[in-house]
């Protein structure tokens, strides 16, 4: 059987398939459907310094082959996570990676620092790309000096694997990838949602209470693939591919474009077993293609006419 384990920095994943932040709760929500121990990793939902209520309702609207959400980082804060959630999930037989958000650099640093000490959290993902909060969030991900500053500050205090999640709402995502690589990130993950909007022509009002929201799902896959390929060609650190993955073929496309691992978000809502199906599908593909190591797929895209 093919070897499907991969490395993100020092972190060893049993396979390249992870659940994306904000789409998988703390994992518990999926325990009825799948064996969480089969996953490469779980990126739990965005955690901030203190409790956040999130945005008012409606927070979601379906769009063509996708959805807009404006959840807005609803969570009970890092202390509650450490005291009440971590004890419940630390037994998972997979890596739990915490997605860290904040409005200020201090908030990011504070959360990262506290997570340093949690033995079963081997990595964090800095979410500098959330389009659904008024302050901070995407600002850090669309202003390069801020991205550098927050990454540098967190790098100073956080000693395990540091992944920075990039925003697609920028002119050059590889510029940001290079910047956070320089600031000490061990890996980059991309893409977060594209900033979008929906309008109800009947009521003549925006559908979301926050007017705009983040677009996810297969609609964004072509953009995500392109960005992964661009970033893969710009940095040396591993790239984690995200955006519209619905099945194993999609995941393989991301790996060919340069992703060492992938995250699956929206697809979990439609099929809560999709992550496990994708893992199986990747194994089948490797067997069919006679590939013994999944890492051979990473960036293996063949451009006709190029050697």
């Amino acid at each position, binding site marked *: 059987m093919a070897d499907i384990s991969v490395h993100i920095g020092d972190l060893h994943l049993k396979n390249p398939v992870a659940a994306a932040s904000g789409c998988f*709760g703390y994992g518990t929500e999926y325990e*009825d*459907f799948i064996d969480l121990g089969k996953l490469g990793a779980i990126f739990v939902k965005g955690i901030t310094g203190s409790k956040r209520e999130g945005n008012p309702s409606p*927070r979601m609207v379906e*769009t063509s*082959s996708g959805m807009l959400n404006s*959840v807005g980082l609803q969570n009970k804060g890092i202390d509650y996570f450490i005291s009440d959630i971590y004890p419940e999930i630390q037994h998972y037989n997979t890596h739990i990676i915490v997605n860290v958000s904040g409005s200020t650099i201090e908030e990011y640093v504070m959360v990262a620092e506290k997570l340093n000490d949690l033995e079963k959290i081997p990595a964090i993902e800095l979410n500098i790309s959330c389009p659904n909060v008024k302050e901070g969030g995407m600002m850090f991900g669309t202003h390069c000096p801020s991205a550098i500053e927050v990454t540098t500050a967190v790098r100073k205090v956080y000693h395990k694997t540091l992944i920075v999640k990039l925003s697609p709402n920028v002119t050059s995502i590889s510029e940001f990838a290079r910047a956070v690589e320089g600031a000490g990130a061990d890996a980059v993950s991309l893409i977060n949602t594209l900033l979008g909007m929906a309008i109800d022509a009947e009521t003549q009002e925006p559908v979301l209470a926050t007017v705009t929201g983040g677009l996810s799902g297969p609609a964004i896959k072509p953009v995500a693939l392109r960005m992964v390929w661009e970033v893969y060609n710009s940095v040396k650190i591993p790239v984690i591919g995200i955006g519209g993955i619905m099945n194993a073929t999609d995941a393989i496309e991301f790996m060919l474009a340069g992703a060492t691992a992938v995250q699956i978000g929206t697809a979990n*809502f439609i099929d*809560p077993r999709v992550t496990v199906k994708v893992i199986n599908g990747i194994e089948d593909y490797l067997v069919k293609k006679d590939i013994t190591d999944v890492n051979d797929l990473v960036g293996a895209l063949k451009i006709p006419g190029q050697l």
Partner: protein
Amino acid sequence: MKKQIHDFQIIANRRVNEEYFVLSLSGNRQLPEIKPGQFVQVRVDNAPNTFLRRPFSVYDVDYKKNILYLLIQIVGEGTRILSELKKGEILNLIYPLGNSFSLPDGEKALLIGGGVGVAPLMLLGRWLKEQKKEPVFLFGFRNYGLLVDIDLFTGFGKVHIATDDGSTGEKGLVTQHSFLRKVTGDISMVYTCGPDVMMKAVALWAEKKDIPCEASLENTMACGFGACLCCAQETVHGILHVCTDGPVFNTKELIWQI
């Protein structure tokens, strides 16, 4: 109850009226216990514009025949496609989801439904009767043509009806029905499901009468099982989620959106 994801076979698609139909779904294994108020998430296949699943309350369950019933109103593309499904076709469901209605303290309970909001009240009526309670139904419909399975509801308790145009029952809104004026101390619980405005009026009425009231809410749902946090409902306890903390809420806990 463990949540499941399974294919069901459509064994009947019964058109109730111009807008509503009932799907009878049979799984190939024993149905788990499904409580009144719980819902399912249905995947709509072969539909260009229905990317996410569609939530529907469980209308009724027949454990002996292993059949689950959904009462569905056609409102958009997803429900239209479901309305056209034929016997033998397959539907993928995630179920059972959400919390459920609670048992009343006293004997008599009033179940107030508007339009397709009567859906969860069928299973609730059945259960209340099984629990030796006495459900009374008060339903509002736009007109006679939109009435839903009144004979079946009558099997569990008396049914009072209001229609907008007076084509059957009393004319006017369900909340203006004379039955409500006659209510004395014997009603120990009010359950309601229907349009928001109706539920708010019912909740207000119940509060005035000092009767506990439970409402089954809707919200836009991406997952239906607590993973996406999209179905936010403001409550006195902060923002809760309709798919896991609800769909049934005690109306005193709700901060209604206007």
